[in-house]
């Protein structure tokens, strides 16, 4: 279990020390403390509105902290942007655009110095390499809207991988995709190619986390627990995160769903 005393270990890549984020009057995350060492694969779990996306946005430098500190390799998130690849939730992307798979992946190579660039030749090799890593090289010319949910997620993963960042943040990577596609993505995440990468995945699936991730961060506005999934995912922690559903079944009969 992470404590305030041991978060600043020498190998820590990401250190959150009492991190708070506020939207107006509402506290989205409160006093979240943890540290992550390089190369770890972390599941971030918790209920809707529990602060998973807020934490990711804070890590990506998209929103400021209201108090506490968040360091990425010793730097503030705004200064560490080059170290992070961020895959936002699918509904924050504009799917009206009829883009090819390679166009989307190429966005990972686009930065503020990308001007007047229509010649993709120098990027083709990198794009193909990245698509090959996620196993969809044969789809490079296809319209991303015509792919399955799992394949779309792989394209977004390829777009993140082409940036060659040390840290990958995948927000709700498994939403609306089937179990097989989830397994495929986990195989890529845990594959030898990404051994050195530190990867955080926000997910609602808390089953068998110990098989897929090194550590789990349990969030419900505050940090309920952080550590080895086998050790920290206790009944108490799950109840702290999701609340007890017991009362839903009180006096449960047809036409009456209890209080």
């Amino acid at each position, binding site marked *: 279990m992470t404590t305030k005393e041991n978060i600043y270990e020498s190998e820590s890549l990401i250190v959150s020390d009492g991190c708070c984020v506020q939207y107006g009057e509402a506290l989205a995350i409160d006093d979240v403390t943890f540290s992550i060492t390089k190369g770890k694969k972390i599941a971030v779990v918790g209920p809707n509105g529990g602060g998973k996306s807020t934490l990711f*946005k804070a890590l*990506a*430098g*998209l929103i400021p902290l209201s108090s506490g500190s968040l360091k990425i390799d010793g730097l503030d998130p705004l200064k560490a*942007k*080059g170290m*992070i*690849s*961020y*895959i*936002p939730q699918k509904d*924050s*992307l*504009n*799917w*009206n*655009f*009829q*883009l*090819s798979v390679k*166009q*989307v992946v*190429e*966005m*990972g190579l*686009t*930065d*503020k110095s*990308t*001007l*007047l*660039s*229509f010649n993709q030749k120098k990027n083709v090799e990198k794009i193909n390499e990245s698509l090959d890593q996620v196993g969809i090289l044969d789809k490079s010319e296809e*319209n991303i*809207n*015509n792919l399955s*949910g799992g394949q779309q997620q792989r394209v977004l993963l390829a*777009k993140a991988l082409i*940036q060659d960042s040390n840290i990958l943040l995948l927000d709700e990577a498994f939403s609306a995709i089937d179990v097989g596609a989830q397994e495929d993505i986990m195989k890529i995440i845990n594959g030898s190619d990404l051994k050195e990468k530190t990867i955080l995945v926000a997910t609602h699936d808390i089953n068998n986390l110990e098989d897929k991730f090194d550590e789990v961060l349990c969030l419900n506005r505050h940090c309920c627990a952080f550590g080895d999934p086998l050790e920290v995912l206790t009944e108490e922690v799950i109840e702290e995160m999701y609340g007890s559903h017991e009362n839903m079944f009180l006096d449960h009969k047809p036409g009456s769903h209890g209080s």
Partner: protein
Amino acid sequence: MISELLIDPFQYDFMIRALIAAIFCGVTLSTLGTFTINRNMGFMADAMAHATLPIIAVGVFFGFSISELGAPAAIVVAIFLGFIVKNTKIGEDTSIGIIFSTFFALGFILIKLLNVTINLEDLLFGQILAVNRTDIFIITALFLIVIGIIIIFFKQLLFYSFDPLGAEVKGLNTNFLNYLFLITLSLAVVSALQTVGIILVLSMLIIPAASAKLITNTFIDSIKVSIAFGIISSVAGLVISYHLDLPTGPSMSLVASTVFLLSYISSKPKIKKR
């Protein structure tokens, strides 16, 4: 016979000027239209056109022409609308609607109060046959600026339009890109005020782009086809209006609508995944 129908109108200088204006406006609007429809910004573009009215009223009062006022009015309106929409507490559409109607009403009141001589019908529906050399110069300059910005910033604008959060994390200046696109869109809209007018500019902005989207599979192809449709609609509208003695702006709009109908009929149903 057909060649006579096409060539005859252009024995007059005013028709050649109208042709140049029609082609440049057609390309400018149909290019910007592809981004506009995919970003659901049609209402914003319409508001930009209408919100220029008070600036035009005051400008004409001080002796400027509508073309001369276009670019400064576009920049002011784009920045103002962009700022309001970003900081709104009542929703984007509602804010745009309030600004749209307020500015349009203010424009009419100013025209009356300042006793400005403006042919309102020309301003609302366009009067391409009246474009002079200065207008052509300004329309050409706006065409070059708008297309130049799109070419230079194409990949950044596309990234920002598809994945704004990802673009920000990647270090793109998303605030700059947002205002750059709004100003470019606004410049494209005002460049066509003389051609199709405040009310019909929206049709030339979104209809060629929407038609193109129906029959293409990629965004790049949709830009190419949209430009072709923009030129066809503008030029065909101009020629038809000449032969049938019809108003030019509405003729261009109706040709664009016809192209849309044909595209709709010939398009294969797309499987929508979400």
